[in-house]
């Protein structure tokens, strides 16, 4: 992630002014204790890195208009139609902006030993890499790695957590970053 603090503060101030102009302050609400809270103003809803005017070819463009996440079914490293649709868009973007390299980070939250999860997460990252390669992304622009059951976005036994954790994140990297992370 490349969200710089300073710019954030600037955006925040800008959003304050914008929300006043736009008359966002329409309806409030009540929290669980019945205490009134104010509608979202500063801090929340402030545009990040250009907001709606995201720069084409930037990391944020990739996040907003392509998407970094590919999801997997339990115990599987197979790409389904939805996964392939996301990866087709990623390949198209990478063809359009050839200076980016990508780091493919695979994760697991599946039944099995830590070693099995590590292996599964690696196979997920490799499945993404191989598919992108088949769509024209040069293999030397990609680095695939499995992290097993690390960095869970949510930890529970329910599918709502598991579905989010069984993923590969496609991280666009400046050429120099990738060179460093290959070590």
């Amino acid at each position, binding site marked *: 992630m490349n969200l710089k603090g300073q710019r954030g503060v600037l955006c925040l101030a800008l959003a304050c002014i914008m929300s006043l102009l736009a008359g966002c302050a329409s*309806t409030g609400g009540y929290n669980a204790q019945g205490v009134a809270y104010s509608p979202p103003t500063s801090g929340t*809803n402030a545009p990040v890195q250009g907001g*709606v005017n995201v720069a084409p070819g930037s990391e944020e463009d990739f996040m907003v208009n392509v998407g970094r996440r590919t999801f997997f079914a339990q115990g599987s490293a197979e790409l389904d139609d939805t996964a392939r649709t996301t990866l087709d868009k990623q390949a198209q973007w990478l063809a359009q902006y050839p200076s980016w390299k990508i780091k493919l980070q695979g994760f697991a939250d599946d039944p099995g030993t830590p070693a099995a999860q590590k292996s599964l997460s690696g196979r997920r990252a490799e499945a993404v890499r191989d598919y992108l390669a088949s769509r024209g992304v040069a293999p030397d622009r990609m680095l695939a790695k499995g992290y097993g059951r690390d960095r869970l976005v949510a930890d529970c036994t329910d599918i709502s957590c598991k579905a989010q954790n069984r993923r590969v994140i496609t991280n666009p990297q400046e050429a120099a970053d990738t060179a460093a992370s290959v070590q």
Partner: protein
Amino acid sequence: MATRREFMMGAAAAALAGSSSAAFGYGKPISKAMLAYFAGQSQDGGYLFRATNWSKIDPKWKRQLVQYYSPEPQGTVVIDTSNHFLYVIFENQTALRYGVGVGRDGFRWFGRARIDRKSLWPRWVPPPEMRKRQPDLPDYVDPGPENPLGPRAMYLYRDGRDLGYRLHGTLEPWSIGKNVSSGCVRMFSEDVIDLYQRCPKGTKVLVLKHLGAPIIDEAAPVDSQQPPG
């Protein structure tokens, strides 16, 4: 009255989708003012849909990355019906925000749900209570450019039970940012296609509480939105 351009759009759509209907939105007429909200057609999975003319859309309803303070984990869909925004929670207190159209007064609701079912180019079957209110509705509308659900639908469940609410597309981009639907959440066609990619089956959904809304989940800690400051 259908304009000549509309007729041609419909005919092209019918040819591609193999549909015999060239009418707009299951037979609703379309005005020139409405047509201005579209910019040609896009293709998706063998069907055509009317592409949104973004120059007609208030920038605040466009998909964008924003700061968002929420205790919800990444990937959760948070819907703020009062402000007509839908968020997908990202890392570092950010979220991807979409503009949505939500339920008319009387159909507003809040609580927790889960996306247990998703479909590409769904068929639309108006529920009996909706047909009672609008007797001119057809029994069903096949998938395609005249289907009011648009190119995608995500079905909200709780404890294995279909709540009857969906996140779906729309044929009426001018309705984004308004209270129009029967409790469903409608999005630009391009946005619902995008959201579908980001929500695996099992995705958590939180509809924020608002005054006057019927409670459908008493136990839900509904106000994830932190007060500012």
